[in-house]
């Protein structure tokens, strides 16, 4: 597991940086990479995770997928890879308690789906980015730079990411210990209400 790779690859001129969350999107994005000029990078995680998408979904570079949304979302959770699955668990837990949140699969970290993020900012009060990466240079920074650039009213922004030097453990232990699991996401949503 690397915690610097997204920052490193995002900084390369003209690069494409992809972080799929399931097998179907991985296949689509590997194929898209082969057709993409310049430097492209795909982070493929080790953990087995449930397939989220049907075979006929498309994953254009620069796009994203909104997996949960309603008219009454109180927050948007943005993740990719392993953390997207935590975001979905958190959304289900919250839905059980009557709280709706939007969940975005940010599989294309660069270029980024500006429009989806801007609408999320407009529609929901709280943007929560959750990622398995250091604070600097990953998904959180990519989203924060849109919040700063887009001419939209400021919303609450929470960045759940790795903030201390990790040690060995099972994936679930690590997600929990470093505050990027479903519990931490639920707590972040509640803190924003």
């Amino acid at each position, binding site marked *: 597991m690397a915690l610097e790779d997204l920052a490193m690859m995002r900084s390369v001129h003209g690069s494409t940086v992809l972080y799929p*969350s399931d097998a179907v999107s991985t296949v689509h994005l590997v*194929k898209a990479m082969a057709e993409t000029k310049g430097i492209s990078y795909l982070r*493929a995680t080790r953990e087995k995770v449930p397939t989220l998408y049907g075979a006929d979904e498309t994953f254009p570079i620069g796009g994203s997928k909104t997996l949960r949304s309603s008219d009454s979302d109180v927050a948007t959770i943005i993740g990719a890879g392993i953390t997207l699955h935590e975001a979905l668990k958190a959304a289900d837990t919250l839905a059980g308690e009557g709280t709706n949140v939007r969940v975005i699969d940010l599989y294309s970290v660069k270029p980024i789906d500006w429009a989806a993020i801007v609408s999320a900012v407009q529609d929901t009060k709280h943007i929560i980015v959750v990622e398995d990466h250091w604070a600097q240079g990953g998904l959180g920074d990519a989203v924060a730079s849109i919040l700063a650039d887009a001419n939209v009213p400021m919303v609450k922004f929470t960045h759940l990411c790795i903030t201390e030097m990790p040690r060995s453990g099972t994936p679930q232990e690590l997600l929990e210990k470093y505050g990027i699991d479903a519990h931490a996401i639920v707590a972040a949503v509640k803190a924003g209400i």
Partner: protein
Amino acid sequence: MPDEATLQSYKDLAAQLRADSIRCTTAAGSGHPTSGMSAADFLAVLAIKYLKYDFQNPKMPNNDHLLFSKGHACPVLYALYKAVGAISDAELLTLRQFDSKLEGHPTPEIPYVDAATGSLGQGLPIGVGIAMAGKYIDKLPYKTWIVCGDSEMAEGSMYEALEIAAHYELNNLVAIVDVNKLGQRGETQLGHDMAAYKARFEAFGWHAIVVDGHDVAALDAAFAEAMTADKPVGILAKTDKGHGVSFTSGLPGWHGKAMKPEEAEKALIELGSPKGDIVITVQKPEDLHPAALSPNTDFVAPSYPLGEKYSARQAYGDALKALGASRGDIFANDSEVSNSTFSETFKKAYPDRFFEMYIAEQVMVSVAQGIEARGYTVFCSTFAAFFARAFDQIRMGAVSRATLH
């Protein structure tokens, strides 16, 4: 032994290359004339007798490749482009101007340049990739010639390249090391210890030839030997930085310095006031075409039932294999972790299109760039953390406007 006239033609061209390196850097007010002056003799011999390149048609598949791993020495490369009639004298004198394609370090904006160099330690590894493409993919007889600096030989990536080149038996690759004893700030670790360079190249499985880099007859013999070797060849040329001019030859303090106009004037007189009008005809390669690839077919995506569990890395391997089936131009490199990254799924299906790069991430990325420079598509895989080791290669790949995966 070449006749007197041939030997004289080498000397005359070498003098012109030195003079032009000085003229264009003095006109620019910056650049590296002395780094090219040490290399002028071997470049003259190479261009007149051994290089096969159609400068009218740089895309010709069977052209040789000439890369300056020591990219900063490009004034002499540009002087060579002038001498073969590829650029004019007027264009040579635009070196380092804002709108000139002759930048301070070579980039593929120049049609005869395969990769941007300047970050030392990268040209040889990229050349290894081109030579691998030549031997295993194009299956063409072209040669890849790489001009390396001796101070550059301190870079670890050069040794990754030496090792992989020997492993892949690249008898189509020739590295010429310009052992001019000096780096940027002073002497290198080995100075003129030619035996040490030879021992290193031989230890890595190369055929090493030590030669007086200013003796054109000896250089001719060294190149002749390199043409027939059954291994990658290192021509280790003992040279003087700034050779040909009394106040620069072998002297420190001149690295990366253009001569002042009055110094340049004196230098040109010492070089015999070359007229600068020599234009040579470089031999053209045989008009051969790359080996056929397996035919393209429709992409058939592997399928994964909703809700069932798979890892993304497993899907990466499946996707690569599916791509390999649909496109004959897809290749893969991995640095000794193919059973973790699942690139072995591709390897099992297409063993001839998979290159094991061992635990040498820098050369893995550079080799991919070299193969891509020949028009193929290469996917590199390793653990995400280890790509950081090749970050400078990736960064320079962007400068090259290369496509890398």
